[in-house]
């Protein structure tokens, strides 16, 4: 009789989730599913609201990556107004978006995943957390915390608030950046660059001790989707969508993000509140693709900044075609953090940043507007329809995490099949299943508009639904 192992709640992720592992009569793992168990419904909440309120409202979707929602929402607002945004405002949005990538990736790597990497997948649960990392290497942990602080500080200095900054509005931003703010940001950069160097060296020295995990935690072919600029380099604010396959071939290039709905579809399954986006030409579920740090580095020809470019070249040598191992999301995340610091350094050195021309005012001139940007977890799309007065009639949010949904499910299944021995179940086995999800750093409150904290549960059940075993944390 088949059984089900349920991990519920999942820990060290952002949001509520559980994992089901189905075990067949022979005692082997047959399949596994990643369920997102809550629903928030921001797409519905914003119906009837004035479009100018949308960035501030959308910032509330998430406390980890509010900036991405503010930026995508503002860009959709720009499109609805039909205006050109002043260059200084674009630079502000770019800086804050990079700062958010930095702080969000720092949270994922140092606070959530480094306990697995530094202390080991089988370390005891009471040690496998950020306090365990501090105990093992306080200097390393401090650097991680400081990197996140730097990102948050930049968001606060430019955006007015560390969390839910609503400074970016349709048509631009609310206030100009002062020289004092610029200098304060610039003063942080040397320390951040040094910390990134140390973190990258540490990660690369650890990688060899995770050979089995690299090979069996979410290592499978898929498409990769990300935004690149005109030179094919990493791009987080504007640019075109590029899709490549696991061999490293470009499948589609120069796709207009404003026409995302022509090439990306969204399916749903009854067992999860998170949608399942797919690449339309290959259908569902064959059109599975990945977004986020690993995908961006796979599709980008270069990083566009010197230090990150060196790391990217080395990174691309880890595979013949694309780097398909989900475990390498961690390394990709660090390279993107380095890139973010370098970009912030460039942007604050630009005198145009201090221009006081930061906002174009207009009434709504279009009925439909789309905004996209690269969020920490991948490509984000906000799509609004308004009436003649500028009230939102319909909204569609295509969230980065949900675009990884098919991949996360495959990663969970592959990991469970390799590491979980149902008859000799150990906590470390289940932690590896969770670690597969942590590679993707999912933000479930974003992707489902789900309420709540962030726990995970694993359950073992018979096909009939009878509960056999349950591991619960959170």
């Amino acid at each position, binding site marked *: 009789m088949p059984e089900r192992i349920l991990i519920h709640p999942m820990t060290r992720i952002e949001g509520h989730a559980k994992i089901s592992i189905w075990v067949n009569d022979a005692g082997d793992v047959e399949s596994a599913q990643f369920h997102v168990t809550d629903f928030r419904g921001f797409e519905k909440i914003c119906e009837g*609201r004035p479009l100018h309120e949308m*960035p*501030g409202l959308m910032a*509330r979707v998430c406390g980890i990556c509010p900036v991405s929602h503010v930026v995508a929402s503002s860009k959709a607002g720009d499109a609805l107004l039909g205006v050109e945004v002043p260059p200084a405002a674009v630079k502000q949005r770019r800086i804050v978006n990079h700062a958010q990538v930095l702080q969000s990736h720092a949270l994922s790597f140092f606070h959530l995943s480094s306990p697995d990497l530094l202390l080991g997948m089988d370390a005891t649960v009471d040690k496998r957390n950020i306090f365990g990392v501090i105990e093992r290497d306080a200097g390393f942990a401090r650097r991680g915390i400081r990197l996140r602080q730097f990102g948050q500080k930049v968001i606060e200095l430019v955006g007015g608030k560390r969390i839910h900054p609503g400074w970016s509005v349709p048509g631009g931003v609310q206030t100009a950046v002062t020289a004092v703010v610029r200098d304060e940001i610039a003063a942080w950069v040397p320390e951040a660059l040094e910390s990134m160097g140390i973190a990258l060296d540490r990660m690369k020295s650890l990688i060899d001790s995770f050979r089995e995990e690299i090979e069996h935690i979410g290592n499978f072919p898929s498409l990769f989707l990300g935004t690149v600029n005109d030179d094919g380099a990493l791009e987080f604010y504007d640019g075109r969508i590029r899709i490549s396959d696991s061999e490293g071939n470009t499948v589609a290039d120069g796709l207009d993000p404003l026409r995302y709905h022509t090439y990306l579809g969204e399916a749903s399954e009854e067992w999860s509140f998170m949608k399942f986006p797919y690449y339309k030409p290959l259908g569902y579920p064959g059109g599975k693709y990945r977004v986020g740090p690993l995908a961006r580095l796979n599709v980008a020809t270069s990083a566009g900044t010197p230090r990150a470019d060196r790391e990217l070249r080395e990174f691309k040598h880890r595979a013949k075609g694309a780097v398909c191992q989900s475990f390498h999301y961690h390394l990709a995340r660090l390279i993107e953090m380095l890139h973010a610091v370098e970009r912030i350094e460039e942007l604050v050195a630009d005198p145009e940043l201090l221009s006081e021309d930061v906002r174009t*005012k207009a009434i709504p001139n279009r009925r439909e507007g789309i905004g996209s940007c690269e969020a920490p977890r991948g490509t984000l799309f906000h799509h609004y329809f308004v009436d003649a007065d500028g009230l939102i009639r319909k909204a569609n949010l295509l969230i980065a995490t949900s675009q990884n949904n098919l991949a996360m499910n495959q990663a969970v299944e592959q990991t469970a099949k390799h590491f979980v021995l149902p008859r000799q179940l150990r906590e470390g086995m289940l932690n590896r299943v969770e670690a597969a999800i942590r590679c993707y750093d999912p933000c479930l409150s974003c992707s489902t508009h789900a309420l709540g904290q962030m726990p995970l549960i694993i359950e073992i059940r018979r096909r009939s639904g009878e509960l056999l075993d349950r591991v619960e944390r959170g």
Partner: protein
Amino acid sequence: MSVKTLEIDGKMLTGVAGETIFSVAWNKGIRIPRLCHIGGISDVGACRLCLVEIEGQKKLQASCLTPVEEGMVVHTDTPKLRAHRRLIVELLFAERNHICSVCVMNGDCELQELATELGIDHVRVRYQFPSLPVDLTHERFGLDHNRCILCTRCIRVCDEVEGAHTWDMLGRGTNSRVISDLGEPWGASDSCTSCGKCVQVCPTGALFAKGKAVGEMRKDRTFLKYIVTAREKKQWIE
């Protein structure tokens, strides 16, 4: 003009006959909470936040409508009054959809400020979550019924100061709605002069200038004093 002497919160104060307890108290720096009162237009006692205790009277009285009397002993800040005020503000929050964090008036809202003063960190009554529309048909201004507390400042200032009487009240109880003209969209109103006085006196984000983002709306309510002084004294001074 006779002078009345009374005691408010232990202070001996004087007011002229016909002056309200609220007016005397505020002139002497005793700040009684209010949301429907605003200097320069008539009072209606709609919000009930300025209720005070008067010794010798069982019922609480709205200080904005109660004239001072000789020998009156008034208390404006007692545990009983604080409890009443807190409940009133909680009921206001529960009745409609007041979400400060995504409101254009966040940081400059009289309702929000009062809630902070009263230490309201949660609402004990069940939220009603009514489904209410936003009217953006006017060229310059917007009306969000979700944030309206039915104080009627807009109705009074439009009628008494601008003389347009565009605004009025439709319905009863929780179904009451501020309407323009005979219930037409604001943008279709024939009587509205687009002066914006209603927007400036509105204590919350119910009336706002179009194009404002979250936390961006700021209101200047001092204009009313100039207008009233100009009307009464024919001088443009405060």
